């Protein structure tokens, strides 16, 4: 996001106090989707509750489908989107896991819907608090992933997500994630644009092959034998390949209207950073605070925040990190037996082609809502400085704020 580039617009935006959930619900009210099918689950319950109130108060024209499960919610969304509607749902954690079977149907049929997620840990043990294991488990289901640092970004990403998903070159579902509780339940001051601006920005939805167009019949969800499945999966990938350009275009256009610009990644003090942390969502805010402290102490610390995790912005990541000496990737998700957390694997792979790549280490943090104190983030930077000084990397994957 570029700073100090606030452009004068005719419309008057509002400064409001909202939770992250409230910010998403407010965006949904302004977007006024044709259909919302949802089954509320902590920590995104408030989005569904607030939106249900908007429906009851007649503030939206949405057909609000109260389903008996998340599997049904996503299935109803598939039907509504194939029918030709602008569709949205909300979930997280076990709910997202329960949707899993239908997630691939949505992306395989190239249905441009938007799903808001308040990230939450997966069972077992049962835990209602935030971490990224739910969306990381579905990272290869063909959905575009946008991660939000705070309520403002949750609002902005929700609005932009429709433009990205519905772009004729993309036509791929988009999920907008916020950190459960840290963002979903935290009341923040944020800017809400006027209803007119949002309405104009997202525009009228033109479905590509609506099933309810009886003059032009179309079949959705046909079976493939081995002679066509691969060709269809390759065809599906086109949307994902076209997505980065569209995400950046939409982010720029949104910035020109609101003063808040978005790209695939956000660089914070990276221009001269020697030691960098790569992280997604709310934790980026804490890291920025630590960077300011460290900069005063003369430590060249920087942050690379990933906004679009899928498709993964490998070129941007490599370009940004290749100038650094050492990098720590913070994964809010376990490794599941992989060589590291999902974000770490992506970042390290992105750097493989570099001539002299920085040392890259991985920390697992914040599982099940575990706090990440600023001193721990500071320690990460100090270790990165030590790695750069001695050339000794030490442990590749470690945990932060774990009793051991």
């Amino acid at each position, binding site marked *: 996001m570029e700073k100090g580039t606030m452009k004068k617009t005719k419309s008057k935006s509002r400064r409001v106090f909202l939770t992250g959930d409230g910010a998403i619900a407010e965006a949904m009210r302004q977007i006024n989707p044709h259909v919302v099918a949802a089954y509320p689950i902590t920590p995104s319950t408030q989005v569904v509750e607030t939106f249900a109130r908007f429906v009851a108060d007649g503030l939206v024209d949405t057909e609000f489908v109260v389903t008996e499960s998340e599997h049904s919610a996503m299935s109803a969304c598939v039907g509504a989107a194939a029918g030709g509607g602008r569709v949205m749902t909300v979930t997280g954690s076990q709910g997202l896991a329960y949707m899993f079977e239908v997630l691939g149907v949505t992306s*395989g*049929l*190239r*249905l441009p819907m938007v799903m808001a997620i308040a990230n939450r840990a997966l069972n077992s043990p049962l835990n209602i608090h935030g971490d990224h294991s739910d969306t990381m488990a579905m990272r290869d289901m063909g959905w575009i992933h946008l991660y939000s640092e705070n309520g403002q970004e949750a609002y902005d990403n929700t609005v932009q997500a429709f433009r990205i998903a519905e772009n004729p070159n993309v*036509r791929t579902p988009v999920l907008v994630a916020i950190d459960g509780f840290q963002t979903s339940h935290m009341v923040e001051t944020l800017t809400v644009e006027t209803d007119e601006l949002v309405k104009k920005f997202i525009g009228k939805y033109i479905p*590509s*092959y609506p099933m309810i167009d009886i003059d032009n*019949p*179309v*079949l*959705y*969800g*046909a079976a*493939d034998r081995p*002679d*066509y499945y*691969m*060709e*269809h999966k*390759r*065809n*599906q990938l086109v949307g994902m390949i076209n997505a980065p350009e569209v995400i950046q275009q939409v982010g720029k256009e949104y910035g020109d209207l609101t003063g808040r610009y978005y790209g695939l990644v956000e660089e914070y003090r990276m221009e001269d950073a020697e030691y960098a942390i790569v992280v997604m969502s709310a934790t980026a805010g804490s890291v920025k605070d630590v960077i300011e402290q460290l900069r005063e102490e003369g430590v060249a610390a920087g942050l690379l925040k990933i906004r679009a995790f899928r498709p993964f912005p490998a070129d941007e990541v490599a370009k940004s990190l290749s100038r650094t000496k050492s990098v720590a990737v913070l994964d809010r998700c376990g490794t599941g037996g992989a060589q590291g957390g999902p974000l770490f694997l992506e970042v390290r792979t992105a750097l493989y082609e570099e001539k002299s790549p920085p040392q890259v280490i991985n920390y697992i943090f914040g599982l099940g809502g575990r706090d990440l104190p600023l001193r721990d983030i500071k320690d990460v930077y100090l270790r990165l400085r030590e790695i750069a000084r001695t050339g000794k990397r030490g442990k590749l994957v470690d945990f932060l704020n774990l009793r051991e």
Partner: protein
Amino acid sequence: MKKQELKKWQELPIGGLILDMGNSSETQTGDWNPNRLVWNEDTCTHCLLCWINCPDASIKVENSKVIGIDDYHCKVCGICVEVCPTKPKSLEIISEEVA
């Protein structure tokens, strides 16, 4: 019917959709079965019980007379053989080696 030409991935409609109406006959649903159905013109009485019972419309009929089997769509389920009233049966399943 000529062998289907397989399309490249660039030539396919978005999302695996099928945009043409009534094109299911283009899919040769009968090509996987190693067995084959044969029809005996000499014993057939053209009662058309086979035609009315066939789930895949694979009994070829012209002017109310059976003229043959559509091997591209016949899955050799054997329903026609079951319902055939002639003795001996006018429809028979033979294995691929014999065919």
